[in-house]
């Protein structure tokens, strides 16, 4: 009996000490982590919209896209005018699961840039979607002048690489993003103030 009490005491004390130590480290790293996550997102947004003077993550619109899902739209402004709009698009049809991209548009709905935020594709194969060669071809395209499908599938987008699954997934995500923008254009570009 005494043995068991000793075992339990040692383990309990140890766990309490561990929890206390972690709580301190957590407090210490909490702000840097929040900050890093924000910066990572902000970098992606800023890379895909034209010149602006505000902090796009301070000027956002949340739009209900049905089934309880919401989409956060970032807006960049210059002298009170909206110069760029960015939001995340995603597709779960890649090899390795979800592919997430930041899609940036100018106020007329032409694509300004895309950034791949997250992908878990095979390095070298599917990861070609992160290369500038692939991404730059989207600039200036809009839903009215482009068929957002791979050339192989009868669309206008060059897959660049031998692999088709990942480019196909990302193109589909972008197409859905463009349709989303078209449907909610007025709400997104509406002046909040």
């Amino acid at each position, binding site marked *: 009996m005494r043995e068991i009490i000793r075992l339990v005491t040692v383990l309990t004390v140890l*766990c309490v000490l*561990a*929890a206390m130590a*972690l709580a301190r480290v*957590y407090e210490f790293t909490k702000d840097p982590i929040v900050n890093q996550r924000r910066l990572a997102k902000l970098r992606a947004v800023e890379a895909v919209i034209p010149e602006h003077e505000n902090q796009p993550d301070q000027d956002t619109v949340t739009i209900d896209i049905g089934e309880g899902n919401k989409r956060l739209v970032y807006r960049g402004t210059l002298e009170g005018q909206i110069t760029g709009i960015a939001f995340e698009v995603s597709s*779960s*049809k890649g*090899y*390795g*699961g979800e592919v997430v991209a930041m899609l940036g548009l100018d106020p007329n709905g032409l694509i300004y840039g895309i950034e791949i935020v997250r992908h878990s594709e*095979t390095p070298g194969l599917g990861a070609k979607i992160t290369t500038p060669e692939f991404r730059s071809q989207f600039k200036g395209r809009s839903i009215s002048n482009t068929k957002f499908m791979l050339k192989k599938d009868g669309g206008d987008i060059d897959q660049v690489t031998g692999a088709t*699954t990942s480019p196909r997934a990302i193109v589909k995500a972008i197409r859905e993003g463009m349709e989303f923008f078209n449907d909610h254009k007025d709400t997104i570009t509406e002046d909040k103030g």
Partner: protein
Amino acid sequence: MGKLIIIIMSTVLVNNFVLARIIGICPFLGVSKKTETAVGMGMAVIFVITLAASVTWTLFTYILAPLNITYMQTIVFILVIAVLVQFVEMVIMKTSPALYQALGIYLPLITTNCCVLAVSVITVQLSYTFIETVVFALGTSVGFTLALILFAGIRERLSLSEIPKSFEGTAIALITAGLLSLAFLGFSGLVK
């Protein structure tokens, strides 16, 4: 339903933990010398992973997340897994000596099988629902077992062939595993 089928296909074949994500290599190399032991280990892993993922998911969703102490997840998960393995071992020993005979020696090894912890961590990271978590855990462990049994079969044959001396043992096993992994790459196009 569609999503569940995709999860199964993806975890068993396309993103097989061992061969595509390279998680769970130690037991994969360690207990793959004989097909029989591979089958035993595989069954034990299927059982423990599915159980552990359900428990850790529940703990995370209803205790860690509401209390805002998700940073305790690694400690809590690994302790749950260790306790669970012990508990399963005791229950099996009491209720089914035959099963214990078959699985007994593999159970302690499972605590340090990275697959178990990885499944727990990944399912909460992807914010899966409970059902998705169970399916993911089941798929992953079946995929692990599949890879293990295939690999054990190859290694049995391999032990009969002549291999350069410096490549005997782990070196040739790794190269074989590499070829198996390349073969699994062929499943890549499966999930569309």
